[in-house]
């Protein structure tokens, strides 16, 4: 029994796993104490629940629970990490390095710092979406204080060489921040091995609730930050504000499930993604965006040439997908991530991001394959460019008359 629209937009957000909701609800309803209330049992038990969840988050990433700071989400964590580190270490230098393909929650704080007198290098990526380590090394300067590179890209799912970058940064004493919002439950994260100093996490990308995230702040060697939210001194002064017990409990449970089920889930998801890829690859003039090897198995981002992007999205509305990251879906600009891979505007516009998840079924994948074949066929029938392509005309050589 298919439920429409079929949800294939797991990178935009995920449903709260019923097991997570079950853990959360008592803390939302009966056990409502403020975890900072030291004077009664309502407060104490809420505080304990928060600390237990902190352990669960730390366990997924092999860190110490003292290194976990609760925030309202990965966007806030990114802001805290980037602005917090830049402000603390600005005496040492004012140069930052990041990638052109980062989420706006990293790019915008960087732009803000530029307005405050910092310099930021936005590195290009290769055609496969991965950063070139040599280009990265070249970009380092004596006054570089912070590097921010995402673990898994939200649009194309590629996995950056975090371990290698970490080695380079540690060697030079540069603080290394990683936005891992799309990584939890999809790739193994071992902070005892990875030389990462700051790492941002989101709950709602890993079957937890919206409104909660975390920032990992390394203790050995010690990393310092300027707090961005001031007040009651919560989270050892790094992030003031009453902690939302039920949301935190939800994140803890979501990360516990991720830790326990990741390997079996990866296998199943990879099978489904590969099925989808195989089913769509026989459509002419399709291009997979981003490296297929260094990529999470949940993501398939494909451009369909000679199909107008908006028409395509409307034609396949039985399937809930994304064309460009959700956070920028409101503006109809071609995805800057796809442009960074070298895709032109038309191809960027005619791309679809399919992201598979815990509750995706084979039936849903098969329906999607059939739907895409049918709709793309119809749309191309209407496309003069498609007709020209089929006649063998090299469209790049055409001199288009201006109107």
């Amino acid at each position, binding site marked *: 029994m298919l439920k429409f629209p079929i949800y294939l937009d797991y990178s935009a957000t995920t449903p709260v796993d019923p097991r997570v*909701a079950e853990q959360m609800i008592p803390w939302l309803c009966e056990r*409502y104490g403020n975890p900072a*209330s030291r004077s009664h049992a309502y407060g104490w038990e809420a505080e304990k629940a928060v600390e237990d969840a902190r352990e669960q988050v730390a366990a997924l990433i092999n860190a110490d629970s003292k290194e976990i700071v609760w925030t309202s989400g990965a*966007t806030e964590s990114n802001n805290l990490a980037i602005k917090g580190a830049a402000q603390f270490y600005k005496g040492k230098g004012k140069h930052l390095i990041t990638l052109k393909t980062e989420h706006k929650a990293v790019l915008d704080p960087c732009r803000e710092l530029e307005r405050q007198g910092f310099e930021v290098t936005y590195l290009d990526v290769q055609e496969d979406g991965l950063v070139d380590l040599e280009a990265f090394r070249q970009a380092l300067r004596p006054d570089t204080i912070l590097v921010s590179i995402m673990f898994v890209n939200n649009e194309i799912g590629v996995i950056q060489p975090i371990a290698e970058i970490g080695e380079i940064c540690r060697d030079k004493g540069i603080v290394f921040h990683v936005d891992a919002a799309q990584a939890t439950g999809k790739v193994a994260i071992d902070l005892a091995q990875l030389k990462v100093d700051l790492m941002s996490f989101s709950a*709602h990308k890993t079957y937890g609730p919206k409104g909660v995230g975390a920032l990992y702040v390394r203790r050995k060697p010690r990393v310092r930050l300027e707090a961005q939210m001031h*007040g*009651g001194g919560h989270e050892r002064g790094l992030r003031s504000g009453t902690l*939302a017990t039920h949301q935190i409990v939800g994140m803890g449970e979501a990360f516990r499930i991720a830790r326990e089920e990741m390997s079996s889930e990866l296998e199943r998801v990879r099978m489904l993604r590969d099925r989808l890829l195989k089913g769509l690859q026989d459509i002419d003039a399709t291009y997979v965006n981003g490296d297929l090897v260094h990529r999470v198995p949940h993501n398939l981002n494909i451009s369909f040439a000679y199909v107008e992007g908006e028409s395509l999205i409307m034609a396949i509305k039985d399937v809930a997908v994304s064309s460009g990251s959700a956070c920028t*879906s409101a503006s109809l600009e071609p995805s800057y991530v796809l442009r960074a891979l070298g895709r032109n505007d038309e191809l960027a516009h005619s791309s679809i991001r399919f992201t598979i998840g815990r509750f995706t079924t084979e039936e849903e994948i098969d329906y999607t394959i059939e739907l895409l074949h049918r709709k793309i066929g119809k749309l191309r029938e209407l496309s003069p460019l498609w007709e020209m392509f089929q006649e063998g005309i090299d469209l790049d050589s055409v001199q288009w008359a201006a109107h």
Partner: protein
Amino acid sequence: MFAPVYLDWNATTPLDAAVREAMLPWLAGRFGNASSRHEYGRQARAALDEARARVAEAVGAHPTEVIFTSGGSEANNLFIKGAAAMMKPARIAVSAIEHPCVREPAGQLRRTGWTVREIAVDGDGRIDQADWQAVLTERPALVSVMLANNESGVLQDVAALAGGARATGAWFHSDAVQALGKMPVDFRALGVHALTVSAHKIGGPLGAGALVLDKRVELAPLIAGGGQERGLRSGTENIAAIVGFGVACERAASGLADEATRLAALRARLEAGLAVLGMRIFSAGAPRLPNTVFFAAEGLDGETLVAKLDRAGFACASGSACSSAHPEPSHTLLAMGVEAIMARAAVRVSMGRDTREADVESFLAALVRTVNELNSLAAVAVET
């Protein structure tokens, strides 16, 4: 299960049943990202818009004046730092009894060249009029005075203060986190430029708050990114909490007058009982929230008293939750000129929708027993 009678409603409140019903679907099958263009996203967007309208209605503002945040602390940080960032360094005036999440951000402004001016309060915690007039002559660019104090419950005449600030060209902000749901809060009528409110103080969930902001005030965002909340607060919207916030606002507004009367009567009964015990009640001579009693028993330690009351089955507080980890006397009381030793004796009882007369009676009985016990222990200590 050991369930103390809950008398700490100013710290946080139990979730209202209607709020629970409204929220549960958003922790289940309705999970879309409001920025997604498909049906799941549109459903989330519609719920977000509806909640925004409810919050706006409850505070007498327009929906476009409501900026959702993760809570009251964030909204206070956003206003103070965000407004200051768009101005040349100048002067910010804050009352001497603000919550740390107003005091601390204001203090941080010093690092960029701002002057912080504390507005004195009198023995009841009311803004000292002479000092206020002095502040106005100093022409602060920003002013922040809370509508209701979380510890003693004292109310400020914010409409009058805002009027005075407007006349000198300052932006006026008021932290109304404790006021909403206990008294009428009308953004337009108060004449403030900005107001902070929070869901978990009015029967809503933890994790949602709002800065209500006059659109003439330019604000730099605290959290930058995907551009949500018209660029003023980025980050995927927490639909479940925001939906809960909207319903909580609606519920808090309904029957407000009757509820305030009922609470005031309970407060009066409690204070009569405290008077018999010779307790001092802070801000007694000033207009206060109807649900709050901040009192002290001379010679006793508030922390100890509160711990024993918890054992006896009553959850209350010795000063605000946010600072209960630090064993310092109440900042509000010190600003009111109360001696530190008296401030350390303070206990706060704050009541709410579930509080009944029987709770007040049994609390008083337990208080009498506990105070007698502590006094006799003290007597023994003195003898030996």
